[in-house]
């Protein structure tokens, strides 16, 4: 069920109504019912996966925490009569046991994801390798339809398991409550990926109706719908034609696509997250922010601290750090420092960890070479800029006034925006070679005149459409500028001026209804991240 469908609007109104009617103790149960109702809507066969993930994660979580508690109580009892070494040995043994149980849970969880999402991709690669060696018969590739949001709820569950193993989260005993944590419907489609310690207490807590909080949640939702329907879906209509015929639309059109896709995916993704956070806010639940004005970032590293924050922190906490401090990596670090000296030596483990993390991030985005190359390119840019850091510092020292001036800041932001735009267009094109040839064509084919010819209308960007997109994007930039300048939450500062905030809210709703790209005229498109 898409966020932008009539069914969802009806569903959400009903959910809000029941949520505040049902006794507070049962509110979480209602959320669970709503979540499974929402999920069943996307196809009953998908339920198998989310149910099995929930069961396995819940079971393994309990088992791991049982081992941990047993070892802690044992150590507490025998605190005096065990020497330090014995205690350490016992702790290591218990840790190993709970670690092996954790690995079992992770293997099952990631196993489900791998089987469903990547078998097709893996087999097709095997086939192509077989093909190069002239082997005729090919493996038949089963096409699994990707269950809704599987990448998100599996990552969230696995994150929970690791947190329980590390003692940062309490294993949930009640399976129904845990099922809600895994399947909380607003974040099913595209995250954010929440941590058990943040989300669970709020989910099971009791929430009484608070008018202003509810209204501020509605405002956030309306803002999300505005970005999604008035900007993202309108641009998508035009993009489809450009993407459909790469031979025809090259050079200037490729650049147009890159810029259009940057705005489109920003509006689509942040809009979707606004809706998700808005819905949660109406339920009295605070979800983590997933974006922090990404297009103001002056470097790629900063960009990835502002874009899809919960994914970034997930990969950092559960992939990057464990990988960079695990024993094998430490021995590499020791050896490399011995061989290449301190400067290079200390970089190698971090580089390996970074590359592996970015490879997995790319793979997680999609089962295709486009996404893997996308991940590795991002990694390359980050590592290169890390190396050039001393150079930047020298530059900043040499021109202190210039480097801290506003225009230079704007230049860096624009540079990062363009760089990210180019790399991100790997998502759109069919395959990597096409994308690279498109990038090249931007500089070689000089057909920028065509952008102002009738062809724009042909593609779908007719005058009226462009005007609406530009005006809507300008409003979004204006609001973002206010948010950045004001620092505090815009909605709070409006709270005491009801006339202004209510009429603005009404205007946003009216703009969505009139200028939104929805309904029979347009085929309602999934959230870009929806098919994950």
């Amino acid at each position: 069920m898409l966020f932008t469908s009539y069914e969802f609007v009806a569903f959400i109104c009903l959910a809000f109504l029941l949520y505040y009617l049902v006794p507070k103790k049962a509110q979480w149960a209602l959320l669970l019912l709503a979540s499974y109702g929402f999920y069943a809507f996307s196809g009953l066969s998908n339920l198998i996966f989310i149910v099995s993930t929930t069961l396995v994660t819940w079971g393994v979580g309990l088992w791991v925490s049982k081992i941990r508690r047993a070892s802690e109580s044992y150590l507490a009892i025998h605190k005096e009569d065990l020497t330090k070494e014995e205690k350490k040995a016992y702790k290591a043994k218990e840790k190993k046991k709970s670690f092996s149980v954790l690995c079992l849970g992770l293997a099952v969880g990631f196993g489900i994801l791998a089987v469903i999402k990547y078998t097709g991709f893996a087999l097709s690669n095997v086939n192509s390798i077989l093909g190069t060696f002239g082997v005729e018969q090919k493996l038949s590739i089963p096409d699994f339809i990707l269950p809704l949001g599987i990448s998100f709820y599996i990552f969230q569950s696995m994150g929970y398991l690791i947190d329980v193993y590390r003692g940062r989260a309490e294993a949930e005993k009640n399976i129904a409550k845990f099922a809600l944590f895994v399947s909380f419907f607003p974040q099913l489609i595209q995250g954010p990926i929440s941590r058990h310690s943040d989300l669970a207490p709020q989910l099971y807590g009791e929430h009484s109706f608070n008018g202003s909080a509810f209204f501020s949640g509605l405002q956030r939702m309306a803002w999300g719908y505005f970005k999604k329907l008035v900007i993202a879906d309108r641009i998508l209509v035009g993009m489809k034609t450009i993407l459909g015929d790469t031979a025809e639309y090259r050079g200037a059109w490729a650049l147009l696509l890159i810029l259009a896709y940057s705005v489109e995916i920003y509006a689509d993704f942040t809009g979707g997250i606004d809706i998700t956070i808005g819905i949660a806010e109406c339920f009295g639940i605070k979800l983590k922010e997933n974006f922090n004005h990404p297009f103001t970032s002056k470097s790629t590293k900063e960009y990835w601290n502002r874009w899809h924050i919960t994914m970034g922190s997930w990969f950092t906490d559960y992939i990057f750090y464990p990988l960079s401090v695990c024993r094998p990596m430490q021995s590499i670090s020791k050896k490399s420092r011995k061989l290449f000296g301190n400067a290079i030596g200390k970089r190698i483990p971090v580089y390996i960890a970074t590359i592996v993390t970015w490879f997995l991030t790319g793979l997680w985005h999609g089962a295709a070479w486009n996404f893997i190359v996308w991940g590795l390119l991002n990694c390359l840019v980050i590592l290169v800029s890390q190396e050039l850091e001393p150079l930047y510092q020298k530059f900043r020292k040499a021109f202190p006034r210039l480097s801290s001036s506003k225009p230079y800041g704007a230049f860096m932001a624009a540079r990062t925006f363009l760089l990210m735009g180019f790399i991100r267009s790997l998502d759109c094109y069919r395959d990597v070679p096409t994308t690279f040839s498109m990038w090249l064509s931007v500089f070689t084919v000089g057909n920028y005149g065509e952008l102002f010819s009738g062809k724009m209308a042909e593609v779908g960007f007719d005058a009226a459409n462009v005007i609406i997109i530009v005006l809507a994007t300008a409003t979004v930039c204006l609001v973002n500028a206010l948010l950045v300048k004001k620092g505090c939450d815009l909605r709070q500062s409006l709270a005491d001026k009801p006339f202004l905030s209510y009429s603005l809210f009404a205007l946003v709703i009216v703009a969505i209804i009139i200028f939104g790209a929805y309904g029979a005229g347009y085929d309602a498109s999934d959230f870009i991240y929806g098919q994950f």
Partner: protein
Amino acid sequence: MKKILALCIALLLIFAVVGCGDETPKGDDVLKLNFYVMYKGEQVKVGVEAKDIIPKLGEYKSEDGEACGTNEKDVIYTLSGIEIETHVSGESEIIRQIKIIDDSQTTVEGITIGSTRDEVIAAYGKVYTEGSSGAIRYEGDASAIEFHFGSSGNVSNIYIKRR
């Protein structure tokens, strides 16, 4: 504790079996053919833009049938041996039906006006549906072919229609 995990693993096995079990029914009952007619070396198919095909087919007569209430219309192009019916809506004119009207044209499978019912069944197989008019119809992927029989029992008209 062991029970819980055993339960989980068992459940996983079930889903694995269920998940990969349902292969889509293969089988030759659905003809994967797309029916078309070869006319002056051109492949005339349904569901394609008329402007790509019709100009290449030589001279023709055409008749309009406007729809009431909208500016859409149907057009029938009469060529030697075949008639092509299109539907015009806005700029697009899609071929909707090809009709073989005399024995100067045959289907790719070699059937024409006057062929017998058995010849048709021999050429297209036994899997067809029969209409109240006694006509028989073979469903293809995106098109279907119909053979209508006159009083003599032989083929009187052949239609290739969009599915």
